[in-house]
């Protein structure tokens, strides 16, 4: 819940639990969740590449696996935990206002 200190008190992070109740009742919730998850992980990958890190979903698409080029990996349950683990692995803060990161995102070719 608190994204700064990453204390986890809810099962699902706020950014991952927004689903239209109508969609869920129609049984399309899991499809929408996986689509959102795919887009989120793809963008996370672009951002973390700037810090020489990578990220992927685990088999269930419920956890993220963040790793560095030395082969170190960590499984985290939410994006809140991911930022903290990634900053530790990168050895520096991950700042979305960093001009170098933004320049890289602007010039990144579409995969």
């Amino acid at each position, binding site marked *: 819940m608190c994204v700064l200190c990453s204390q986890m008190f809810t099962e699902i992070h706020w950014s991952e639990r*927004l689903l239209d109740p109508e969609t869920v009742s129609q049984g399309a919730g899991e499809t929408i969740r996986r689509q959102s998850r795919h887009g989120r992980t793809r*963008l996370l990958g672009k951002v973390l590449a700037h810090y020489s890190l990578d990220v992927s979903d685990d088999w269930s698409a419920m956890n993220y696996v963040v790793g560095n080029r030395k082969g170190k990996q960590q499984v985290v349950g939410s994006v809140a935990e991911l930022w903290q683990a990634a900053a530790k692995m990168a050895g520096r803060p991950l700042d979305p206002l960093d001009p170098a990161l933004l320049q890289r995102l602007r010039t990144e070719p579409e995969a």
Partner: protein
Amino acid sequence: MTSGGRRAVTVLSGFLGSGKTTLLRRYLAGHGAGVAVIINEFGAIGVDHHLVRMVEEQSVLLQGGCVCCTRREDLVRTLRDLLDQENSGKLPPISQVVIETSGIADPVPVLFTLGTDPVLQHQFAPAAVVVTLDALNAAAQIERQPEVRKQIIAADWVVVTKTDLAPFEAVSRCRMRVRQLNPTARITVSRLGDGSDALAPTRGAVRGLPPEAPAAPHSEVQSTALGFNAPLDWPAFGVWLGMLLQARGPDVLRIKGLLDIGDAGPVVMNVAQHVVHPPEHLAAWPADADGSYLVFITRGIDPARIADSLETFQRAGGRADLSVRELA
């Protein structure tokens, strides 16, 4: 009750002597049925209501947590006790709880406690933070008391009190100072304790239109309203905001707004310090809405950098044509 059947919780805050209890008494006189009241301190004026619980603030700073991750154990115990008594039939059904904080309390730990306790989060929903501000003393209190500034920034609704005693200019100045710190807050002027409707658990926190920028910005606190030319990509927005709060949390004091993510209705965003209220997906746009917007109240961050960063993340997330602009 709010949507989802949870009991609405209104947090009533305000500096010592700013008229919290007067406002509460007025409210209870008209809306008392089904309203439970939790107070932190006995003021000069008592609250004559059958459902009053007195608590002594017991805050626990969670290990490894930041300042807003303070759990109010007293509230957890009292709210769970109210639930037990309601369920066993000892109390009538509760539709709303008003928590009157002490004069120097920070309202954010109350929101944190409600949102994180495994029992309370399913039974209670924050409706609004209402803050009383004494028109006579507001200028000095805002200047000298950091608690007052925090309360105003956390507010959804500010009720300016004692306006019958203050000259017109003082009331105007008071409104301007609030606007400087928190342009998203609704401001009403109370005379002789009226204006207590601010405590009603309506959608007081939702505003359809972005607020006007203050004429003279505060020296420490900047605020900016951002508008968008197209619907936002929600997963990319979540990535960006999560990263921003992780990196810049202490300097992002408040975020509030309505976001068009391409569905029929908008998403209501409300972030107080680092506590993200669960985003609420409205079925339709409010009648007074004119597109989506987000207001940021920050300390020491150039608003143009926020707009540039959000736009870049949205484009990298697949919304190639999205542009973010600062609303005048």
